[in-house]
């Protein structure tokens, strides 16, 4: 399959890469010879894959994730593995065991997370495109903070085979690039059915972005412009939506009442799933070896205490707590009801409007070390997690600057209407470029 190799020797002053492949092979196809970076929680045959965790240091997958197989089939050159918050748990890429990634727009600030390495690699021009993953905003947040485009596809549209699971009912692989056309191109390669992912749908993506938004009905949820959202960001995003109106779209004010508890529901569900998914990291099948002379409890505790960082340990314990007898009904069961209410809110709104628009993040990129308290970091995910709870597609496209830092316009759509959110983003991008 591979016909040629390229040279890839980036000046990675931002710590965007955990592994660089200096001479990657590539074949023929729509991505022939294009260097694509892959987030380090996506399995790559023969290339170390750590999830930015000490517990997977040295782990070399014996197979490719389905999305990586598709990239190679399209001729792409796998340029390396990008830094991230450990196992995807974070909003800043500061939770990496291998040091934070810096934001190329301002190296005193975080790139966002958890796909911060992929976003920084694209924003700095080291690669044209990258794969990220989005569990609660992990593609859209760093796209917004670094001033690039990122698409969180509809759940089920891109195979999760080979994605090292953190919260599998919420997360998906998705494309990141400097512009909407490249995001759309990368999506066309990675979408489609895969029998090895039991939640995979047979909905390929064959689409060329269109700038036609005449008659598009845009819902403006008031919660996306309310308390906690920087007023300058709200104003910037409103101006961007105004631009779409000038192009022929109409706007409708609306409300998502379940936003009141969506973030709490998200954190209960993702930590619960993490406590189960991360139970496999015990030093037996991979990772630093467990001491086989000790009893299994003692051996596992040694490995996990040394291998997992503080945020991962915190989330595993929170999930264990939320699922434990006596608390299950109060937290996990309630969170599932809340999740259904979020889904119903979106379904109700999408009978009247075609897309919903708001800011991707409530603030610009924070300074390194600014959010030292876990809860304050969690609260910055408020505008991105509803999409994951509902499984719908959403894109973040740059729409201006506040204090010199990029702001993202988030466009959310009906399930399996990834094409429509891509078109709305494309229409905006082309209009401001002109």
């Amino acid at each position, binding site marked *: 399959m591979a016909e040629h190799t390229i040279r890839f020797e980036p000046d990675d002053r931002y710590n965007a890469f955990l592994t660089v492949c200096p001479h990657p092979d590539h074949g023929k196809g729509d991505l022939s010879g294009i260097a694509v970076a892959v987030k380090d929680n996506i399995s790559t045959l023969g290339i170390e894959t750590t999830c930015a965790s000490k517990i997977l240091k040295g782990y070399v997958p014996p197979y490719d994730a389905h999305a990586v197989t598709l990239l190679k089939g399209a001729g792409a050159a796998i340029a390396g593995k990008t830094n991230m918050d450990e196992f995807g748990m974070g909003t800043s890429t500061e939770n990496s065991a291998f040091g934070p990634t810096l934001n190329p727009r301002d190296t005193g600030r975080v790139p966002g997370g958890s796909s911060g390495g992929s976003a920084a690699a694209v924003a700095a021009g080291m690669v044209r495109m990258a794969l990220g993953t989005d569990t609660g905003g992990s593609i859209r947040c760093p796209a917004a903070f670094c001033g690039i485009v990122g698409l969180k596809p509809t759940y089920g549209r891109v195979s999760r085979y080979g994605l090292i699971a953190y919260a599998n009912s919420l997360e998906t692989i998705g494309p990141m690039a400097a512009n909407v056309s490249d995001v759309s191109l990368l999506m066309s390669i990675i979408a489609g059915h895969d029998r090895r992912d039991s939640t995979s749908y047979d909905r390929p993506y064959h689409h060329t972005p269109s700038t036609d938004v005449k008659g598009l009905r845009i819902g403006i949820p008031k919660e996306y412009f309310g308390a906690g959202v920087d007023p300058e960001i709200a104003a910037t995003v409103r101006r961007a939506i105004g631009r779409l109106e000038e192009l022929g779209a109409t706007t409708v004010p609306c409300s998502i009442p379940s936003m009141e508890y969506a973030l709490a529901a998200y954190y209960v569900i993702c930590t619960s799933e993490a406590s189960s998914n991360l139970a496999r990291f015990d030093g037996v099948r991979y990772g630093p070896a467990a001491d086989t002379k*000790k009893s299994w409890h003692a051996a596992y505790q040694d490995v996990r205490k040394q291998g997992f960082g503080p945020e991962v340990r915190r989330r595993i314990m929170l999930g264990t707590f939320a699922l434990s007898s006596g608390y299950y009904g109060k937290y996990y069961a309630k969170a599932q009801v809340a999740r259904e209410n979020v889904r119903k809110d979106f379904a109700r709104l999408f009978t009247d409007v075609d897309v919903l628009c708001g800011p991707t993040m409530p603030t610009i990129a924070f300074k390194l070390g600014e959010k030292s308290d876990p809860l304050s970091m969690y609260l910055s995910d408020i505008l991105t997690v509803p999409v994951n709870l509902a499984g719908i597609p959403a894109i973040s496209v740059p729409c201006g600057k506040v204090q010199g830092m990029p702001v993202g316009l988030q466009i959310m759509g009906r399930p399996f209407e990834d094409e429509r959110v891509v078109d709305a983003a494309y229409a905006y991008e082309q209009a401001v470029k002109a």
Partner: protein
Amino acid sequence: MVTEKDVEHIGELADIGIDTNELATFTGQFNAIVDYFDVLDRVRGDGTVSRDLYNILRDDEIEPSLPREEALRNAGAQEDGFIKAPRVM
């Protein structure tokens, strides 16, 4: 209110390995987060899910899988072609 004893117990259940000098920090953070989770008390509705989905089953056909040496490559300890785990008894 989550106590240090609770956190210690959860740490045991999760095999996370907590040192006593970590208990106070984790407990403080736990309480702030769990207080925030209490907004879920306001959730109304029964969450009934009806999506007309049905199971799609396929025949259990035996297909080639990872060769043994590949499957063992990342294992911490192995013996006679098997992965070696800590003792259970």
